[in-house]
């Protein structure tokens, strides 16, 4: 029996590794052998972005802004500091801007050149945000894109598209939905979605069962 590397991988993982998977495995081995990378550091980075940093962070910011007018003012004037107050910051969130949606103003965020996205409050960007379709169309046909995604805006609503072309990172503060009067910050945070904080959706009113 030959010592075929491919076969060993099949045995290890129960299925063959695809092209990029093989190349990445080889690259990681090389960088570890050269002392440039510690695999445990890679595990820690992955764990951070898979389990700790995500849109639940942004949801807390939004819910606090909905319930605390003084916090909302700070958030809209110095977003980086106001987000840091709640305990979030770091890579790809060093210089934050918060955009407030209103009945006649709708903000939506894109990065036409790549994938700029506010990691500390939303986590890593989803595939659709990084897709050619979204990057190409969000600036030339924002209403068409929003409509496809189920958000119909009337002509009297002003649409502002924010193309993240420099190091500023944008978070949309969606409108608080009706039917949430008296809700606590923690309850409200459960309603806030990633897509609403990018600006491709509104936060839906709670279902009767949530109240």
């Amino acid at each position, binding site marked *: 029996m030959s010592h075929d590397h491919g076969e060993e991988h099949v045995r290890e993982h129960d299925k063959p*590794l*695809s092209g*990029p*998977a093989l*190349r*990445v495995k080889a*690259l*990681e*081995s*090389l*960088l570890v*052998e*050269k*002392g*440039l*990378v*510690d695999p445990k*550091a*890679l*595990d*820690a*980075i*992955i764990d*951070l*972005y898979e389990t700790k940093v995500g849109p639940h962070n942004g949801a807390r910011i939004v819910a606090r802004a909905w319930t605390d007018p003084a916090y909302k003012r700070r958030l809209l004037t110095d977003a980086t500091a106001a987000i840091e107050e709640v305990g979030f910051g770091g*890579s790809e969130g*060093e*210089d934050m801007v918060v955009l407030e949606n209103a009945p006649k103003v709708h903000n939506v965020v894109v990065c*036409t*050149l*790549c*994938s700029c996205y506010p990691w500390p409050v939303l*986590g*890593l960007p*989803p*595939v*659709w945000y*990084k*897709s*050619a*379709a979204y*990057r*190409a*169309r969000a*600036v*030339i046909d*924002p*209403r068409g894109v929003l409509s*496809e*995604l189920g958000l119909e805006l009337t*002509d009297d609503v*002003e649409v*502002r*598209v*924010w*193309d993240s072309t*420099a*190091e*500023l990172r944008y978070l949309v503060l969606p409108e608080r939905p009706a039917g949430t009067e008296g809700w606590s910050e923690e309850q409200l945070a459960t309603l806030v979605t990633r897509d609403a904080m990018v600006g*491709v959706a509104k936060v839906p009113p709670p279902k009767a069962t949530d109240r």
Partner: protein
Amino acid sequence: MNGVHDMGGMHGMGPVVIERDEPVFHADWEARVYALLRATGFLGKWNTDMSRFSRERMPPAAYLAATYYERWLFGLQALLVEQGLVTARELATGRAATKAGETAALRASDVAARMRGRLSARVSVEVPARFKPGDPVVARRINPVGHTRLPRYVRGRRGTIHIDHGVFTFPDTNAMSRDPKPQHCYSVRFDARELWGPEGTVRDSVYLDLFEDYLDAA
């Protein structure tokens, strides 16, 4: 560069499809590539702008066919070879010819603090601002062959300064020669009709963050 990565306004890319309950990574190798680029970034051999430019240089047909993290893998390999951390032969064979010298790998115990740290491109130097909010400006008609953050769809278009964000590192020179060339970065508002003609909706607009070297007074 006038690359295929500069996608704003292109047609034919199909619908935007949101995957429900999407995982952060769709395969283990995507997670490893992400972590490899983040970890090697702390070796100090390249800056963020050089990293972006490494992906933009992927040949256009390959760029469009690739998934997101395949582009990251392409860029990472290019940076490693160009900055002398790995030789092309080592990449091809997967075997290390030499150990790294003084370079210290990012340790697991430092990850949380490093990811939480501020690596802001904001620069604390005094640079006079040429523009102030409300000023009419026009984006320059330039075609840099290197890295730039001035998308084609605004070149030659007239807009209005919305906010002065302050002084930042200039990506164009920082990517090509590590020259930070600190300058003001502005939020500039463009009417949808100025960008797209009569097809743009009257009250809609696009805001871009543009560096002073991209702008002239209008």
